[in-house]
């Protein structure tokens, strides 16, 4: 453990940026059609429940990251193995988000640029950020969050003024009953972005005020959940259920509908900036968690020493994981969710908490 310290506000900022991350640009939960906002809010509610598990685990071991206390709870050999699984998971998701990011840019802005070049540029920035460490990342975040919010507000006002909103597109509410909504919650919105809070269990020990960590995380998640629900609802109101679900990037289409006074139009750049800011923080946090996790597991005193090798690995992985965008999305929705998100975000943390509680009560004190 390196003596890095971030304050509670910086943690909050990182959580908000991370949770918005790619969730604002991808078609999140559109399989629920016009009820997508309900699916996101339910995802948030269950996500908070799942987070309470992470929060409790952190309270038991306030000075240890996930890969540290996992060894305390299940013992060194199994714990180390699980630690390696988690580190791999974080790096793999970093590679996935990096791929998302490259694909999005390639689809709508740089059709002639090779994917590798775009990913490499982003990966370089991410590696540099991780090399500089969490404090630098958090301070950058404070700057960018304000920017993101100003842009979001401007975008909202412009969409409103353009007169392209048709509230009736949200009707009929719950057309197919609750079934479709719950299905979306349990296959999409619960895990991305809310379940991904698991990555912060690696960063909580670096916060200088452990008592307030859970509160900051809960408020950050709630704020993001509301924002995402509003954005998804606006996409529906502007594009309609059919338009939004056929679109690769609903938010981009919504922004493209803006036309105010023949002057404010073609504001695609707003989307682009949101995409780059969100993408950067999401990749950075997953990557940083993977790097410090690996450093912790293998007893490397300075995490800087493995930033570049692991960064290169993530970059290559981001290219190698899928041969086209459809395959990438399919893997994300059908395979990663069931084989990675559910066990690693929910099952293992819950088991850890149960075992920790049993050990506390019956076993000799672990402290």
């Amino acid at each position: 453990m390196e003596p890095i310290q971030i304050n509670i506000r910086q943690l909050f900022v990182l959580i908000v940026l991370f949770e918005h991350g790619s969730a604002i640009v991808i078609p999140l939960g559109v399989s629920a059609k016009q009820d997508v906002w309900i699916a996101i809010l339910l995802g948030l509610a269950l996500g908070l429940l799942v987070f309470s598990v992470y929060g409790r685990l952190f309270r038991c071991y306030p000075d240890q990251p996930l890969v540290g206390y996992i060894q305390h709870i299940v013992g060194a050999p199994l714990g180390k193995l699980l630690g390696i699984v988690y580190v791999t998971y974080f790096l793999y998701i970093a590679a996935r988000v990096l791929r998302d990011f490259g694909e999005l840019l390639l689809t709508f802005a740089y059709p002639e640029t090779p994917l590798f070049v775009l990913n490499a540029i982003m990966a370089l920035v991410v590696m540099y950020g991780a090399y500089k460490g969490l404090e630098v990342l958090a301070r950058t975040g404070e700057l960018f969050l304000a920017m993101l919010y100003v842009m979001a507000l401007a975008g909202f006002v412009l969409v409103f003024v353009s007169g392209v909103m048709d509230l009736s597109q949200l009707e009929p509410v719950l057309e197919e009953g609750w079934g479709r909504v719950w299905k979306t919650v349990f296959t999409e919105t619960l895990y991305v972005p809310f379940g991904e809070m698991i990555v912060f269990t690696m960063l909580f020990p670096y916060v200088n005020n452990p008592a307030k960590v859970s509160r900051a995380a809960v408020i950050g998640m709630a704020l993001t959940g509301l924002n995402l629900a509003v954005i998804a609802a606006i996409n529906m109101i502007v594009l309609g259920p059919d338009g939004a679900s056929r679109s690769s990037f609903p938010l981009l289409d919504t922004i493209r509908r803006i036309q105010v006074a023949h002057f404010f139009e073609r504001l695609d750049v707003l989307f682009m900036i949101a995409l780059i800011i969100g993408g950067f923080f999401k990749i950075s946090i997953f990557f940083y968690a993977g790097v410090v996790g690996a450093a912790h597991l293998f007893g490397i005193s300075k995490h800087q020493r493995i930033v570049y090798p692991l960064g290169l690995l993530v970059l290559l992985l981001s290219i190698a994981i899928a041969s086209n965008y459809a395959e990438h999305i399919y893997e994300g929705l059908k395979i990663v969710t069931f084989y990675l998100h559910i066990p690693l975000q929910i099952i293992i943390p819950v088991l850890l908490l149960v075992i920790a509680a049993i050990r506390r009560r019956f076993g000799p004190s672990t402290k």
Partner: protein
Amino acid sequence: MKRRIAIFVLLVVCTGMLAGCWSKKELTDLAFIIAVGLDKTKDGKYLASFQVVNPGNVAGATQRGGGAAGVPVSIYASTGDSLVEASRKASQKLSRLPYYAHTNLVVIGEEVAREGLDGVFDALERNNQFRTTARLVIAHGHSAQDVLTVLTPVDKISANQIIKTLEFSEMAWGQTMNVDVWQVIRDLSSPGRNPVVTGVKIEGNPTRGKRQTNVQSSVPDARVSLDGLALFKNGRLVKWVNGPTARGVVWVLDRIKQTNVTIPWNGKQEAIGFRTVRAKTDVEAEFKGGRPSISVHIGAEGDISEVLTMVHLNDPAVLLRLEKELDRHIENEVKQAIVSAQRVRTDVFGFGDAVHRAAPRLWKKIQNEWHDRYFPELDVTVTADIYIRRTGLRNKPYMEK
């Protein structure tokens, strides 16, 4: 020394990265396509026409007062099995790279519209340059290419002329609509609503309209004007509606902003003109014994714009009677529009969407037969509430009794 080399390498890398000119295109290498026209050739291929801005001549023409410089736009046409193929093929004639980010108008030839729009727009919405906020019109009785070739006097670029006409005519007169590609795609993909698109026609002689002399006369040899609304069914153009009926369609779709309604009074046919300032239409679905019915309610307010008969406008009771007459007049106009759509069995008003919102279960059962079976027999009640707020600068007209 080591540090210096590192900084040097960094600078070199930065210059490479920051310039950002991976696939740069110079302005002088781009052909700005301002409008796209789509027709069919005799052997069933698409004939795409591209109106390309002639930048030098647009700027020059304004400075020289529409002088003898070249034409502001030129048309490139090419054929292909699809729009993209035709567009790529046009590069054999075009000395620059076609650039679609500024395409503001899409003109569909009547023949293509009659054959069906399914799939026609896919290339447009898939492409990352093209904006689906581009306006859409149907060439009424002419080919799209003819419409695009006519040179226009006031707004030099004829695509802009058409777009601005669409915009201001919808605002002032309300018998046409300013529809964009995105809305048409939405209507095409929705089971409860079919598209309506404005038509354009050429008044005069299209072959003389392509010459620069067309804009050197105060009455051009050929003019492009808006003409009626095209109603679609299953993606195919099935009927044109004009005049008051077209305005009835626009009323139901809640797109009326301002218009002028003339009503008879004192036995005189066109006696009193009413100008709307604000209008709002609400469409609601109701159910009687499991069968849907629709109520359309129009609320509008405005001023008296013209009086051609003797009437005392400072008497509130007279205004009240005038309002009643206006209500009746507008209700008739709207009913006329609904009946003419019912006759061709196409719900261009989105009544199906209203039913869908109000009764999703019932809609599931009837949506496949909506246009053919339910819509033509649909019971529609139309009510209008018109308010005359002011009578202009005069109360009584100057004529004798």
